[in-house]
Protein backbone atom coordinates (compact mmCIF):
# COMPACT_ATOMS: atom_id res chain seq x y z
CA UNK A 1 0.00 0.00 0.00
CA UNK A 2 2.33 2.66 -1.29
CA UNK A 3 -0.14 5.38 -2.18
CA UNK A 4 -0.80 7.89 0.57
CA UNK A 5 -4.08 7.68 2.39
CA UNK A 6 -5.88 10.93 3.36
CA UNK A 7 -8.51 9.24 5.46
CA UNK A 8 -11.63 7.12 5.56
CA UNK A 9 -15.02 8.22 4.36
CA UNK A 10 -18.41 6.82 5.29
CA UNK A 11 -21.54 7.44 3.27
CA UNK A 12 -24.98 7.86 4.89
CA UNK A 13 -28.48 8.17 3.55
CA UNK A 14 -30.04 10.59 6.02
CA UNK A 15 -28.87 13.59 8.05
CA UNK A 16 -30.00 11.88 11.27
CA UNK A 17 -27.66 8.95 10.60
CA UNK A 18 -24.85 11.38 9.88
CA UNK A 19 -25.37 13.29 13.12
CA UNK A 20 -25.60 10.07 15.14
CA UNK A 21 -22.45 8.74 13.51
CA UNK A 22 -20.64 12.05 14.06
CA UNK A 23 -21.56 11.95 17.73
CA UNK A 24 -20.20 8.40 18.08
CA UNK A 25 -17.03 9.33 16.23
CA UNK A 26 -16.43 12.21 18.58
CA UNK A 27 -17.21 10.08 21.62
CA UNK A 28 -14.70 7.51 20.36
CA UNK A 29 -12.08 10.24 20.66
CA UNK A 30 -11.46 11.24 17.05
CA UNK A 31 -10.69 14.93 16.55
CA UNK A 32 -9.56 15.32 12.92
CA UNK A 33 -12.94 14.72 11.39
CA UNK A 34 -15.24 16.46 8.96
CA UNK A 35 -18.80 16.04 7.74
CA UNK A 36 -20.34 16.92 4.39
CA UNK A 37 -24.01 17.38 3.60
CA UNK A 38 -26.10 19.01 0.87
CA UNK A 39 -27.55 21.53 3.35
CA UNK A 40 -26.54 22.99 6.74
CA UNK A 41 -27.32 20.75 9.73
CA UNK A 42 -27.56 22.78 12.94
CA UNK A 43 -26.74 19.90 15.27
CA UNK A 44 -23.53 19.14 13.39
CA UNK A 45 -21.32 21.66 15.23
CA UNK A 46 -22.22 20.16 18.55
CA UNK A 47 -22.11 16.53 17.28
CA UNK A 48 -18.59 16.87 15.91
CA UNK A 49 -17.47 19.15 18.74
CA UNK A 50 -16.62 22.03 16.43
CA UNK A 51 -15.74 25.12 18.47
CA UNK A 52 -17.17 28.53 17.73
CA UNK A 53 -15.14 30.58 15.32
CA UNK A 54 -12.81 33.29 16.64
CA UNK A 55 -13.86 35.47 13.69
CA UNK A 56 -16.09 37.83 15.76
CA UNK A 57 -13.08 38.78 17.90
CA UNK A 58 -10.95 39.37 14.82
CA UNK A 59 -13.67 41.60 13.36
CA UNK A 60 -13.88 43.55 16.61
CA UNK A 61 -10.09 43.98 16.51
CA UNK A 62 -10.33 45.12 12.90
CA UNK A 63 -12.97 47.67 13.87
CA UNK A 64 -10.94 49.07 16.76
CA UNK A 65 -7.86 49.29 14.51
CA UNK A 66 -9.91 51.19 11.94
CA UNK A 67 -11.20 53.59 14.59
CA UNK A 68 -7.73 54.33 15.95
CA UNK A 69 -6.30 54.60 12.44
CA UNK A 70 -9.07 57.01 11.45
CA UNK A 71 -8.51 59.28 14.43
CA UNK A 72 -4.73 58.94 14.17
CA UNK A 73 -4.73 59.81 10.48
CA UNK A 74 -6.78 62.95 11.01
CA UNK A 75 -4.80 64.07 14.04
CA UNK A 76 -1.61 63.62 11.99
CA UNK A 77 -2.96 65.51 8.99
CA UNK A 78 -4.74 68.32 10.82
CA UNK A 79 -2.40 68.86 13.74
CA UNK A 80 1.09 67.59 12.95
CA UNK A 81 1.66 67.55 9.21
CA UNK A 82 -0.36 70.46 7.88
CA UNK A 83 -2.21 72.47 10.55
CA UNK A 84 -5.00 74.41 8.91
CA UNK A 85 -7.27 76.88 10.67
CA UNK A 86 -10.87 75.95 9.81
CA UNK A 87 -13.38 78.48 11.11
CA UNK A 88 -11.23 79.19 14.15
CA UNK A 89 -11.77 75.71 15.58
CA UNK A 90 -9.07 73.78 17.40
CA UNK A 91 -6.78 71.69 15.20
CA UNK A 92 -7.94 68.57 16.98
CA UNK A 93 -11.72 68.82 16.63
CA UNK A 94 -12.99 65.39 17.55
CA UNK A 95 -16.61 65.89 16.35
CA UNK A 96 -15.45 66.51 12.79
CA UNK A 97 -13.15 63.47 12.96
CA UNK A 98 -15.97 61.10 13.84
CA UNK A 99 -17.48 60.46 10.38
CA UNK A 100 -14.19 59.52 8.75
CA UNK A 101 -13.07 57.44 11.76
CA UNK A 102 -16.44 55.71 11.73
CA UNK A 103 -16.13 54.87 8.04
CA UNK A 104 -12.65 53.43 8.54
CA UNK A 105 -13.98 51.38 11.46
CA UNK A 106 -16.58 49.83 9.18
CA UNK A 107 -14.13 49.38 6.32
CA UNK A 108 -11.54 47.50 8.36
CA UNK A 109 -14.18 45.49 10.24
CA UNK A 110 -15.72 44.50 6.90
CA UNK A 111 -12.38 43.57 5.38
CA UNK A 112 -11.49 41.53 8.46
CA UNK A 113 -14.82 39.73 8.26
CA UNK A 114 -14.38 38.76 4.60
CA UNK A 115 -10.67 37.99 4.49
CA UNK A 116 -10.60 36.55 8.02
CA UNK A 117 -13.40 34.19 7.03
CA UNK A 118 -11.51 33.10 3.91
CA UNK A 119 -8.29 32.64 5.88
CA UNK A 120 -9.91 30.63 8.67
CA UNK A 121 -11.77 28.47 6.14
CA UNK A 122 -8.57 27.79 4.26
CA UNK A 123 -10.13 29.21 1.10
CA UNK A 124 -9.55 29.44 -1.81
CA UNK A 125 -8.61 25.77 -2.06
CA UNK A 126 -8.37 24.33 -5.55
CA UNK A 127 -7.67 20.73 -4.47
CA UNK A 128 -9.14 18.54 -1.78
CA UNK A 129 -8.57 14.78 -1.49
CA UNK A 130 -12.22 13.96 -0.69
CA UNK A 131 -13.05 14.52 -4.37
CA UNK A 132 -10.97 11.44 -5.21
CA UNK A 133 -13.94 9.38 -4.10
CA UNK A 134 -16.28 9.39 -7.13
CA UNK A 135 -19.46 9.05 -5.06
CA UNK A 136 -18.54 12.20 -3.10
CA UNK A 137 -20.16 14.22 -5.90
CA UNK A 138 -23.46 13.17 -4.32
CA UNK A 139 -22.65 15.30 -1.26
CA UNK A 140 -24.19 18.24 -3.12
CA UNK A 141 -27.39 16.30 -3.82
CA UNK A 142 -28.66 13.58 -1.54
CA UNK A 143 -25.92 11.78 0.38
CA UNK A 144 -24.18 12.56 3.66
CA UNK A 145 -20.50 11.90 4.26
CA UNK A 146 -18.27 11.64 7.29
CA UNK A 147 -14.47 11.68 7.09
CA UNK A 148 -11.80 10.67 9.60
CA UNK A 149 -8.36 11.85 8.55
CA UNK A 150 -5.21 9.75 8.83
CA UNK A 151 -3.68 12.77 10.58
CA UNK A 152 -5.89 11.99 13.57
CA UNK A 153 -3.73 10.71 16.47
CA UNK A 154 -6.23 7.91 17.12
CA UNK A 155 -6.25 6.80 13.46
CA UNK A 156 -5.34 3.14 12.94
CA UNK A 157 -6.35 1.85 9.51
CA UNK A 158 -7.93 -1.50 10.47
CA UNK A 159 -9.46 -0.36 13.76
CA UNK A 160 -10.85 2.81 12.27
CA UNK A 161 -12.23 1.03 9.26
CA UNK A 162 -14.09 -1.55 11.35
CA UNK A 163 -15.25 1.23 13.68
CA UNK A 164 -16.70 3.16 10.78
CA UNK A 165 -18.38 0.05 9.44
CA UNK A 166 -20.01 -0.41 12.84
CA UNK A 167 -21.80 2.92 12.33
CA UNK A 168 -24.08 1.33 9.69
CA UNK A 169 -23.01 3.42 6.69
CA UNK A 170 -23.92 2.59 3.10
CA UNK A 171 -20.27 2.08 2.37
CA UNK A 172 -16.81 3.01 3.68
CA UNK A 173 -14.27 4.38 1.20
CA UNK A 174 -10.52 4.87 1.35
CA UNK A 175 -9.72 8.48 0.48
CA UNK A 176 -6.45 8.80 -1.43
CA UNK A 177 -4.21 11.79 -0.91
Amino acid at each position, binding site marked *: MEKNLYGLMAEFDTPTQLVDAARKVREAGYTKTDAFSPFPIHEM*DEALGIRRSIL*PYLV*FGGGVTGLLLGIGLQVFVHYIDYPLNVGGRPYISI*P*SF*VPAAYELTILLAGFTAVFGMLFLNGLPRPYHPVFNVPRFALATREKFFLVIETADPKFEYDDSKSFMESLNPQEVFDVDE
Partner: protein
Amino acid sequence: MADIGNYQAPADLGRLRTLALGIGGIALIAWAVGYFFSPEQALRSWLLGFIFWGGISIGSIGVLILQYLTGGAWGLVIRRTIEAATRTLPLVFLMFLPLAIGVTQLYEWTHLPADDYTVIHRGWYMTPVAWILRSVIYFILFGIMAYLLNNWSAQQDKTDNHEDAAKFLGYATAFSGPTMVIYALIVTFAVVDWVMTLDPHWFSTMFGFLFIAGWALSCFCFSVVILAYLSERSPMNRVLGKRHFHDLGKLMLALVMVWAYFNFSQFLIIWSGNIPEETGYYLTRMKGAWGYIGVALVLFHFAFPYLLLLKRDIKRKAKWLASLGIFILLMRLVDMFYLIAPNPRIDTHGLGQGAFVISWMDFVAPVAVGGIWLWYFFGQLMKRPLVPVMDPFLDSAIEHGKGH
Protein backbone atom coordinates in the same frame (compact mmCIF):
# COMPACT_ATOMS: atom_id res chain seq x y z
CA MET B 1 -59.48 28.74 17.11
CA ALA B 2 -59.03 25.79 19.36
CA ASP B 3 -55.65 27.06 20.51
CA ILE B 4 -56.86 30.34 22.03
CA GLY B 5 -57.35 28.89 25.48
CA ASN B 6 -53.83 27.50 25.46
CA TYR B 7 -52.24 30.89 25.01
CA GLN B 8 -53.94 32.86 27.77
CA ALA B 9 -51.68 35.14 29.81
CA PRO B 10 -50.49 33.69 33.14
CA ALA B 11 -52.46 34.74 36.20
CA ASP B 12 -49.47 36.25 38.06
CA LEU B 13 -49.74 39.26 35.77
CA GLY B 14 -52.77 40.21 37.84
CA ARG B 15 -50.60 40.60 40.95
CA LEU B 16 -48.07 42.74 39.10
CA ARG B 17 -50.97 44.80 37.84
CA THR B 18 -52.26 45.59 41.31
CA LEU B 19 -48.74 46.35 42.53
CA ALA B 20 -48.17 48.77 39.63
CA LEU B 21 -51.44 50.55 40.35
CA GLY B 22 -50.61 50.84 44.07
CA ILE B 23 -47.19 52.36 43.48
CA GLY B 24 -48.48 54.57 40.68
CA GLY B 25 -51.40 55.77 42.80
CA ILE B 26 -49.18 56.77 45.74
CA ALA B 27 -46.79 58.57 43.38
CA LEU B 28 -49.73 60.31 41.73
CA ILE B 29 -50.92 61.67 45.07
CA ALA B 30 -47.39 62.90 45.82
CA TRP B 31 -47.26 64.55 42.41
CA ALA B 32 -50.65 66.22 42.97
CA VAL B 33 -49.30 67.72 46.20
CA GLY B 34 -46.27 68.95 44.25
CA TYR B 35 -48.53 70.48 41.63
CA PHE B 36 -50.21 72.51 44.35
CA PHE B 37 -46.89 74.09 45.34
CA SER B 38 -45.10 74.39 42.01
CA PRO B 39 -47.30 73.89 38.95
CA GLU B 40 -44.60 74.64 36.39
CA GLN B 41 -42.14 72.09 37.77
CA ALA B 42 -44.91 69.56 38.29
CA LEU B 43 -46.06 69.86 34.67
CA ARG B 44 -42.51 69.65 33.38
CA SER B 45 -41.98 66.45 35.36
CA TRP B 46 -45.33 65.17 34.14
CA LEU B 47 -44.21 65.86 30.57
CA LEU B 48 -41.12 63.74 31.29
CA GLY B 49 -43.29 60.82 32.42
CA PHE B 50 -45.74 61.36 29.57
CA ILE B 51 -43.03 61.42 26.89
CA PHE B 52 -41.28 58.37 28.38
CA TRP B 53 -44.29 56.08 28.89
CA GLY B 54 -46.44 57.52 26.13
CA GLY B 55 -43.36 57.02 23.98
CA ILE B 56 -43.53 53.28 24.61
CA SER B 57 -47.17 53.32 23.41
CA ILE B 58 -46.46 55.42 20.34
CA GLY B 59 -43.17 53.64 19.65
CA SER B 60 -45.11 50.37 19.76
CA ILE B 61 -47.36 51.62 16.95
CA GLY B 62 -44.23 52.20 14.86
CA VAL B 63 -42.75 48.78 15.68
CA LEU B 64 -46.12 47.11 15.03
CA ILE B 65 -46.21 48.69 11.57
CA LEU B 66 -42.57 47.75 11.05
CA GLN B 67 -43.03 44.08 11.90
CA TYR B 68 -45.98 43.79 9.49
CA LEU B 69 -43.75 45.21 6.77
CA THR B 70 -40.67 43.11 7.43
CA GLY B 71 -42.27 39.87 8.61
CA GLY B 72 -40.11 37.47 10.58
CA ALA B 73 -40.39 35.40 13.72
CA TRP B 74 -39.48 38.27 16.08
CA GLY B 75 -42.55 40.17 14.93
CA LEU B 76 -44.88 37.30 15.69
CA VAL B 77 -43.60 36.73 19.20
CA ILE B 78 -43.70 40.40 20.22
CA ARG B 79 -46.89 41.29 18.33
CA ARG B 80 -49.33 40.76 21.18
CA THR B 81 -47.12 42.58 23.69
CA ILE B 82 -46.77 45.66 21.53
CA GLU B 83 -50.43 45.50 20.50
CA ALA B 84 -51.31 45.69 24.19
CA ALA B 85 -48.95 48.68 24.48
CA THR B 86 -50.66 50.44 21.56
CA ARG B 87 -54.05 49.86 23.18
CA THR B 88 -52.94 52.02 26.12
CA LEU B 89 -53.37 55.04 23.82
CA PRO B 90 -56.68 56.18 25.44
CA LEU B 91 -54.87 56.29 28.78
CA VAL B 92 -51.96 58.16 27.21
CA PHE B 93 -54.48 60.70 25.93
CA LEU B 94 -55.88 61.10 29.45
CA MET B 95 -52.33 61.66 30.64
CA PHE B 96 -51.96 64.36 28.04
CA LEU B 97 -54.87 66.33 29.51
CA PRO B 98 -52.87 67.91 32.40
CA LEU B 99 -50.48 69.27 29.77
CA ALA B 100 -53.34 70.59 27.62
CA ILE B 101 -54.96 72.27 30.61
CA GLY B 102 -51.66 73.60 31.92
CA VAL B 103 -50.19 74.66 28.58
CA THR B 104 -49.80 78.27 29.70
CA GLN B 105 -48.10 77.18 32.92
CA LEU B 106 -45.57 74.93 31.18
CA TYR B 107 -44.53 76.48 27.87
CA GLU B 108 -42.51 79.66 27.75
CA TRP B 109 -43.86 80.55 24.31
CA THR B 110 -47.27 81.28 25.82
CA HIS B 111 -45.65 84.20 27.66
CA LEU B 112 -43.47 85.73 24.96
CA PRO B 113 -43.96 89.44 24.17
CA ALA B 114 -45.97 90.12 21.02
CA ASP B 115 -42.94 91.63 19.24
CA ASP B 116 -40.80 88.51 19.66
CA TYR B 117 -39.81 87.35 16.16
CA THR B 118 -41.05 83.80 16.73
CA VAL B 119 -44.46 85.10 17.81
CA ILE B 120 -44.70 87.33 14.72
CA HIS B 121 -43.47 84.61 12.40
CA ARG B 122 -45.47 81.67 13.76
CA GLY B 123 -48.67 83.63 14.27
CA TRP B 124 -51.80 81.58 14.93
CA TYR B 125 -49.93 78.28 14.61
CA MET B 126 -48.24 78.81 17.94
CA THR B 127 -51.28 79.64 20.04
CA PRO B 128 -52.47 77.38 22.88
CA VAL B 129 -55.74 76.56 21.12
CA ALA B 130 -54.03 75.56 17.87
CA TRP B 131 -51.46 73.59 19.87
CA ILE B 132 -54.14 71.62 21.74
CA LEU B 133 -56.16 71.01 18.55
CA ARG B 134 -53.09 69.67 16.77
CA SER B 135 -52.34 67.33 19.66
CA VAL B 136 -55.89 66.01 19.53
CA ILE B 137 -55.44 65.36 15.80
CA TYR B 138 -52.20 63.45 16.49
CA PHE B 139 -54.02 61.28 19.01
CA ILE B 140 -56.88 60.66 16.58
CA LEU B 141 -54.46 59.58 13.83
CA PHE B 142 -52.42 57.38 16.19
CA GLY B 143 -55.72 56.01 17.47
CA ILE B 144 -56.89 55.06 13.97
CA MET B 145 -53.63 53.19 13.34
CA ALA B 146 -53.76 51.37 16.67
CA TYR B 147 -57.48 50.58 16.31
CA LEU B 148 -57.29 49.16 12.79
CA LEU B 149 -54.20 47.03 13.38
CA ASN B 150 -55.56 45.68 16.67
CA ASN B 151 -58.94 45.01 15.12
CA TRP B 152 -57.56 42.99 12.20
CA SER B 153 -55.41 41.04 14.58
CA ALA B 154 -58.42 40.25 16.78
CA GLN B 155 -60.51 39.20 13.78
CA GLN B 156 -57.68 36.94 12.69
CA ASP B 157 -58.01 35.05 15.99
CA LYS B 158 -61.67 34.36 15.25
CA THR B 159 -61.06 32.72 11.88
CA ASP B 160 -60.95 28.94 11.65
CA ASN B 161 -58.57 28.43 8.73
CA HIS B 162 -55.28 29.86 7.55
CA GLU B 163 -56.71 31.28 4.29
CA ASP B 164 -59.07 33.62 6.15
CA ALA B 165 -56.36 34.43 8.66
CA ALA B 166 -53.96 35.33 5.86
CA LYS B 167 -56.54 37.78 4.51
CA PHE B 168 -56.41 39.85 7.72
CA LEU B 169 -52.64 39.65 7.76
CA GLY B 170 -52.77 40.97 4.20
CA TYR B 171 -54.93 43.95 5.25
CA ALA B 172 -52.55 44.81 8.06
CA THR B 173 -49.51 44.57 5.79
CA ALA B 174 -51.05 46.68 3.02
CA PHE B 175 -52.12 49.29 5.58
CA SER B 176 -48.67 49.39 7.17
CA GLY B 177 -46.75 50.53 4.07
CA PRO B 178 -48.17 54.03 3.56
CA THR B 179 -48.91 54.35 7.29
CA MET B 180 -45.20 54.14 8.10
CA VAL B 181 -44.67 57.43 6.25
CA ILE B 182 -47.61 59.09 7.98
CA TYR B 183 -46.42 57.75 11.34
CA ALA B 184 -42.98 59.31 10.92
CA LEU B 185 -44.58 62.65 9.99
CA ILE B 186 -46.99 62.70 12.93
CA VAL B 187 -44.29 61.76 15.44
CA THR B 188 -42.18 64.61 14.09
CA PHE B 189 -45.04 67.11 14.39
CA ALA B 190 -46.01 65.81 17.82
CA VAL B 191 -42.59 65.97 19.46
CA VAL B 192 -41.91 69.38 17.93
CA ASP B 193 -45.08 70.59 19.63
CA TRP B 194 -44.67 68.72 22.90
CA VAL B 195 -40.91 68.94 23.50
CA MET B 196 -39.09 71.21 21.06
CA THR B 197 -41.31 74.22 21.72
CA LEU B 198 -40.18 74.18 25.36
CA ASP B 199 -37.36 76.29 23.93
CA PRO B 200 -39.28 78.50 21.50
CA HIS B 201 -36.17 79.99 19.89
CA TRP B 202 -34.42 76.75 19.01
CA PHE B 203 -35.14 74.35 16.20
CA SER B 204 -33.74 71.16 14.70
CA THR B 205 -35.06 69.21 11.73
CA MET B 206 -33.50 66.08 13.22
CA PHE B 207 -35.71 66.24 16.27
CA GLY B 208 -38.50 63.92 15.12
CA PHE B 209 -36.05 61.18 14.24
CA LEU B 210 -34.50 61.26 17.71
CA PHE B 211 -37.89 60.19 18.99
CA ILE B 212 -38.79 57.77 16.21
CA ALA B 213 -35.57 55.86 16.95
CA GLY B 214 -35.64 56.44 20.70
CA TRP B 215 -39.24 55.37 21.16
CA ALA B 216 -38.73 52.28 19.02
CA LEU B 217 -35.74 51.44 21.23
CA SER B 218 -37.89 51.95 24.34
CA CYS B 219 -40.52 49.67 22.81
CA PHE B 220 -38.01 46.90 22.10
CA CYS B 221 -36.40 47.10 25.54
CA PHE B 222 -39.80 47.07 27.19
CA SER B 223 -41.04 44.12 25.09
CA VAL B 224 -37.89 42.14 25.86
CA VAL B 225 -38.42 42.69 29.59
CA ILE B 226 -42.05 41.55 29.34
CA LEU B 227 -41.17 38.57 27.13
CA ALA B 228 -38.33 37.49 29.42
CA TYR B 229 -40.83 37.48 32.30
CA LEU B 230 -43.40 35.55 30.26
CA SER B 231 -40.83 33.10 28.89
CA GLU B 232 -40.48 31.50 32.33
CA ARG B 233 -44.19 30.82 32.54
CA SER B 234 -46.75 28.87 30.59
CA PRO B 235 -47.79 29.42 27.81
CA MET B 236 -44.87 31.46 26.48
CA ASN B 237 -42.22 28.98 27.68
CA ARG B 238 -43.51 26.74 24.88
CA VAL B 239 -43.17 29.53 22.34
CA LEU B 240 -40.09 31.58 23.08
CA GLY B 241 -36.64 30.25 22.23
CA LYS B 242 -33.10 31.58 22.49
CA ARG B 243 -33.15 32.61 18.90
CA HIS B 244 -36.12 34.96 19.37
CA PHE B 245 -34.18 36.83 22.04
CA HIS B 246 -31.12 36.77 19.82
CA ASP B 247 -33.11 38.49 17.05
CA LEU B 248 -34.64 41.04 19.41
CA GLY B 249 -31.17 41.71 20.85
CA LYS B 250 -29.86 42.42 17.36
CA LEU B 251 -32.67 44.92 16.82
CA MET B 252 -31.87 46.56 20.16
CA LEU B 253 -28.24 46.86 19.06
CA ALA B 254 -29.32 48.41 15.77
CA LEU B 255 -31.56 50.94 17.51
CA VAL B 256 -28.91 51.86 20.09
CA MET B 257 -26.71 52.70 17.11
CA VAL B 258 -29.45 54.58 15.26
CA TRP B 259 -30.17 56.63 18.38
CA ALA B 260 -26.48 57.53 18.64
CA TYR B 261 -26.31 58.24 14.92
CA PHE B 262 -29.25 60.66 14.95
CA ASN B 263 -28.09 62.42 18.09
CA PHE B 264 -24.57 62.81 16.82
CA SER B 265 -25.79 64.00 13.40
CA GLN B 266 -27.78 66.74 15.08
CA PHE B 267 -24.81 67.70 17.22
CA LEU B 268 -22.33 67.64 14.34
CA ILE B 269 -24.52 69.82 12.11
CA ILE B 270 -25.08 72.40 14.85
CA TRP B 271 -21.42 72.28 15.89
CA SER B 272 -20.26 72.74 12.28
CA GLY B 273 -22.78 75.48 11.49
CA ASN B 274 -21.87 77.33 14.69
CA ILE B 275 -24.67 79.90 14.40
CA PRO B 276 -26.09 81.57 17.49
CA GLU B 277 -29.75 80.53 17.17
CA GLU B 278 -28.79 76.85 17.21
CA THR B 279 -25.76 76.55 19.47
CA GLY B 280 -27.54 77.80 22.60
CA TYR B 281 -29.19 74.40 22.98
CA TYR B 282 -25.88 72.59 23.33
CA LEU B 283 -24.13 75.39 25.21
CA THR B 284 -26.67 75.00 27.99
CA ARG B 285 -26.42 71.22 27.91
CA MET B 286 -22.61 71.11 27.96
CA LYS B 287 -22.22 73.31 31.02
CA GLY B 288 -21.91 72.05 34.61
CA ALA B 289 -24.06 69.16 35.71
CA TRP B 290 -25.89 69.03 32.34
CA GLY B 291 -22.51 68.31 30.73
CA TYR B 292 -21.95 65.30 32.99
CA ILE B 293 -25.38 63.97 32.06
CA GLY B 294 -24.48 64.39 28.38
CA VAL B 295 -21.24 62.43 28.85
CA ALA B 296 -23.13 59.79 30.83
CA LEU B 297 -25.57 59.43 27.93
CA VAL B 298 -22.76 58.89 25.43
CA LEU B 299 -21.22 56.27 27.70
CA PHE B 300 -24.30 54.50 29.06
CA HIS B 301 -26.97 55.09 26.46
CA PHE B 302 -24.58 54.23 23.65
CA ALA B 303 -21.11 52.80 24.37
CA PHE B 304 -21.91 50.41 27.22
CA PRO B 305 -25.06 48.78 25.76
CA TYR B 306 -23.46 48.80 22.32
CA LEU B 307 -20.41 46.83 23.46
CA LEU B 308 -22.48 44.40 25.53
CA LEU B 309 -24.96 43.78 22.72
CA LEU B 310 -22.12 42.84 20.38
CA LYS B 311 -21.75 39.67 22.46
CA ARG B 312 -23.84 36.81 21.19
CA ASP B 313 -24.26 35.17 24.60
CA ILE B 314 -25.86 38.27 26.11
CA LYS B 315 -28.41 38.46 23.31
CA ARG B 316 -29.33 34.78 23.71
CA LYS B 317 -29.92 34.75 27.48
CA ALA B 318 -33.36 36.17 28.17
CA LYS B 319 -32.46 37.32 31.69
CA TRP B 320 -29.31 39.15 30.66
CA LEU B 321 -31.01 40.79 27.72
CA ALA B 322 -33.92 41.85 29.94
CA SER B 323 -31.53 43.29 32.56
CA LEU B 324 -29.83 45.28 29.84
CA GLY B 325 -33.28 46.29 28.57
CA ILE B 326 -34.16 47.74 31.99
CA PHE B 327 -30.83 49.56 32.06
CA ILE B 328 -31.41 51.08 28.61
CA LEU B 329 -34.95 52.08 29.64
CA LEU B 330 -33.48 53.95 32.61
CA MET B 331 -31.04 55.68 30.28
CA ARG B 332 -33.96 56.52 27.98
CA LEU B 333 -35.52 58.31 30.93
CA VAL B 334 -32.27 60.19 31.56
CA ASP B 335 -32.16 61.07 27.85
CA MET B 336 -35.71 62.44 28.00
CA PHE B 337 -34.76 64.38 31.14
CA TYR B 338 -31.75 65.81 29.27
CA LEU B 339 -34.03 66.91 26.43
CA ILE B 340 -36.78 68.39 28.61
CA ALA B 341 -35.36 69.74 31.86
CA PRO B 342 -32.69 72.26 30.73
CA ASN B 343 -35.14 74.22 28.55
CA PRO B 344 -36.04 77.80 29.49
CA ARG B 345 -38.52 78.18 32.33
CA ILE B 346 -41.25 80.77 32.83
CA ASP B 347 -40.34 81.24 36.47
CA THR B 348 -36.66 80.47 37.09
CA HIS B 349 -36.85 81.13 40.86
CA GLY B 350 -33.87 83.48 40.46
CA LEU B 351 -31.54 80.74 39.16
CA GLY B 352 -31.11 82.05 35.62
CA GLN B 353 -32.12 80.20 32.45
CA GLY B 354 -30.46 76.84 31.89
CA ALA B 355 -29.30 76.40 35.49
CA PHE B 356 -29.16 72.82 36.69
CA VAL B 357 -32.49 72.00 38.31
CA ILE B 358 -33.63 68.56 39.33
CA SER B 359 -36.77 68.25 41.38
CA TRP B 360 -38.15 65.38 43.43
CA MET B 361 -41.10 65.51 41.08
CA ASP B 362 -38.83 64.41 38.20
CA PHE B 363 -38.68 61.06 39.99
CA VAL B 364 -42.26 60.95 41.23
CA ALA B 365 -44.04 61.87 37.98
CA PRO B 366 -42.51 59.10 35.81
CA VAL B 367 -43.35 56.59 38.57
CA ALA B 368 -46.92 57.88 38.77
CA VAL B 369 -47.43 57.80 35.01
CA GLY B 370 -45.59 54.47 34.76
CA GLY B 371 -47.50 52.71 37.52
CA ILE B 372 -50.86 53.61 36.06
CA TRP B 373 -49.67 52.93 32.54
CA LEU B 374 -48.38 49.45 33.50
CA TRP B 375 -51.63 48.68 35.30
CA TYR B 376 -53.55 49.49 32.13
CA PHE B 377 -51.00 47.69 29.94
CA PHE B 378 -51.17 44.43 31.90
CA GLY B 379 -54.97 44.60 31.75
CA GLN B 380 -54.79 44.88 27.97
CA LEU B 381 -52.15 42.14 27.70
CA MET B 382 -54.36 39.69 29.62
CA LYS B 383 -57.34 40.29 27.34
CA ARG B 384 -56.02 38.43 24.31
CA PRO B 385 -54.00 35.27 23.64
CA LEU B 386 -50.26 35.98 23.96
CA VAL B 387 -49.52 34.96 20.37
CA PRO B 388 -51.59 35.53 17.21
CA VAL B 389 -52.91 31.96 17.29
CA MET B 390 -54.25 31.79 13.75
CA ASP B 391 -51.37 33.53 12.02
CA PRO B 392 -50.23 31.35 9.09
CA PHE B 393 -46.59 31.87 10.08
CA LEU B 394 -46.96 31.03 13.76
CA ASP B 395 -45.66 27.46 13.55
CA SER B 396 -42.57 28.42 11.61
CA ALA B 397 -41.97 31.32 14.01
CA ILE B 398 -42.05 28.96 17.00
CA GLU B 399 -39.80 26.51 15.15
CA HIS B 400 -37.36 29.33 14.40
CA GLY B 401 -36.85 29.96 18.11
CA LYS B 402 -35.77 26.40 18.77
CA GLY B 403 -32.92 26.48 16.26
CA HIS B 404 -29.34 27.30 17.11
